[in-house]
């Protein structure tokens, strides 16, 4: 039986079908609007492999952090497929997926995902045999604070994720820091974590699946909102 894995949280939109190992995958760089083509990308995968939708066992999806629209498309498509086929959805955190992909390192792993407006989602992990363990809680961090974080101790660090979007020499050239792959979350990274969650039944109920935005919604109040003292009687 097969599993579908999706990542739509960043600049690269990827989809992959796995049996025990990868069967087929595709990836493309999203530009504005192209994220709604995710379903076409999935359809192409099924056509290419000849796999039937009914042969799907589960869908693994990247539930963030990352770009909001992409995440919502990933959730909507996963939920549409899973509701129709009656199969489970396994949400996988992108920071975890990046760190897990680098778990053979001996350094402390720093997972970085761009969430726009010059902020990053950030979390550190210690490598363990066969996996990783969170060393800190995930947080939203500005570039300045990331610079401070990375240079505050002399731990050997491995940066994974969107470090290529960091335009800060001090972070990139820090002698304790090594810049590494993966540079962004892929469907394959998601599968590798999702498969463990699925096998050990560690995934939430269908109704409880949430996107990890890690930030409150942007609200710009219109200026009319300032309620003036209006001279009324009832």
């Amino acid at each position, binding site marked *: 039986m097969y599993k579908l894995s999706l990542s739509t949280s960043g600049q690269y939109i990827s989809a992959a079908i796995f049996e025990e190992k990868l069967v087929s995958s595709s990836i493309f760089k999203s530009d504005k609007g192209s*994220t*709604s083509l*995710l*379903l*076409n990308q*999935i*359809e192409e995968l099924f056509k290419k492999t000849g796999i039937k*939708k009914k042969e799907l066992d589960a869908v693994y999806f990247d539930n963030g952090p990352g770009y*909001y*629209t992409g995440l*919502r*498309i990933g*959730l*909507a*498509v*996963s*939920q*549409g*497929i899973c*509701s*129709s*086929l009656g199969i489970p959805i396994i949400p996988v955190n992108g920071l975890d997926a990046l760190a897990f992909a680098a778990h053979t390192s001996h350094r402390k792993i720093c997972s970085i995902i761009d969430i726009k407006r010059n902020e990053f989602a950030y979390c550190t992990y210690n490598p363990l045999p066969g996996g990783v363990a969170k060393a800190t809680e995930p947080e939203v961090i500005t570039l300045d604070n990331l610079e401070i974080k990375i240079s505050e101790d002399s731990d050997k660090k491995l940066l994974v994720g969107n470090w290529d979007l960091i335009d800060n020499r001090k972070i990139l050239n820090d002698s304790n820091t090594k810049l590494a792959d993966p540079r962004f979350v892929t469907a394959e990274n998601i599968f590798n974590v999702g498969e463990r969650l699925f096998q050990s039944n560690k995934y939430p109920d*269908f*109704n409880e699946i*949430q*996107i990890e*935005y890690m930030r409150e*919604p*942007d*609200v710009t*109040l*219109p200026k*009319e*909102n300032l*309620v*003036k003292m*209006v*001279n*009324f*009687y*009832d």
Partner: protein
Amino acid sequence: MLEDKIILGFETSCDETAIAIMRNDELLVNKISSQIDLHEKFGGVVPEVASRAHAEMIRNLLHSALNEGGVELSEVDVVASTDGPGLAGSLVVGYNFAKSIAWSLEKPFLGVDHMVGHLSAPLIENPSLKPPFLSLLVSGGHTQIVLVEEWGKYNLIGTTIDDAAGEAFDKLSRYCGFGFPGGPAIQKIGDGGDETKIDFPRPKTSNKFDYSFSGLKTAAIYYLQGLPDDQPISKKDFAASYQEAIVDSLMSIFEKAVKETNVSTISGGGGVMANSRLREKLMIFAENENKDLLLPSPKLSTDNAAMICIAAKNNLITNDLGLEDIRLSSIIS
């Protein structure tokens, strides 16, 4: 070919997550999960808040819609969803959810224009509605006069050059702290008030069928700011007069368009079409001019998914499409 077929429709273009199910001409389910509570404190729809809510709600709403209709997802024959216009972040949720359901079930999928949905909504209660007719579409996002020459041939003859009529209600309501959405709030406050108390301007535009509402809102705010401290105004009269100015503006231009296009049937839709003063004036006008007035009920005037189901169905019928035809053409776009 559409006998006994089940259509599942989705609408998430603004702040309502809506799902409907139709079997033949029967509307089995018309579910709307309103986000009014979420947007109330901002006095308007906040796009990012709206799309988050759609993503959180849509799956459970589908579940309860299917339950209520006694329909299994596998029994659905056609899936339809609004594909625009609307808030981009909101549209993608319903559209992708709907399309992936169609894809998984290997059923045809139809994207439906939101405005065509509003134009088609009267068909649910009045299957006799036939083009040509003139429709007044008014809400927080649009103010349009559309001449439906035939199904599929829509001629936009008038629109707003600035704020939509619903925005004129919302913005003033926010300024005065009357509540959100502004239309129903102002209607309620103005109930029984003297609508002739304040003579607000009825703005003119260069195109004879176009609307303009931003000047009206500004005039109302200036009016309040100019009130002497010791001469407060009755809230009732103020709200009634403001509503009257909007309804009057809507009517006078629409009436002109009806006369000039010489249609015998008139219709309408959108959230502001739930306003009882506007409905009353349309009824009087239709009676005086001997026109057929086919308005959707208030519940089907505001954004809903039943209108998406009926628009999809109407499209299939008028273009004489079989389900096989759309399966081939529209699952991948």
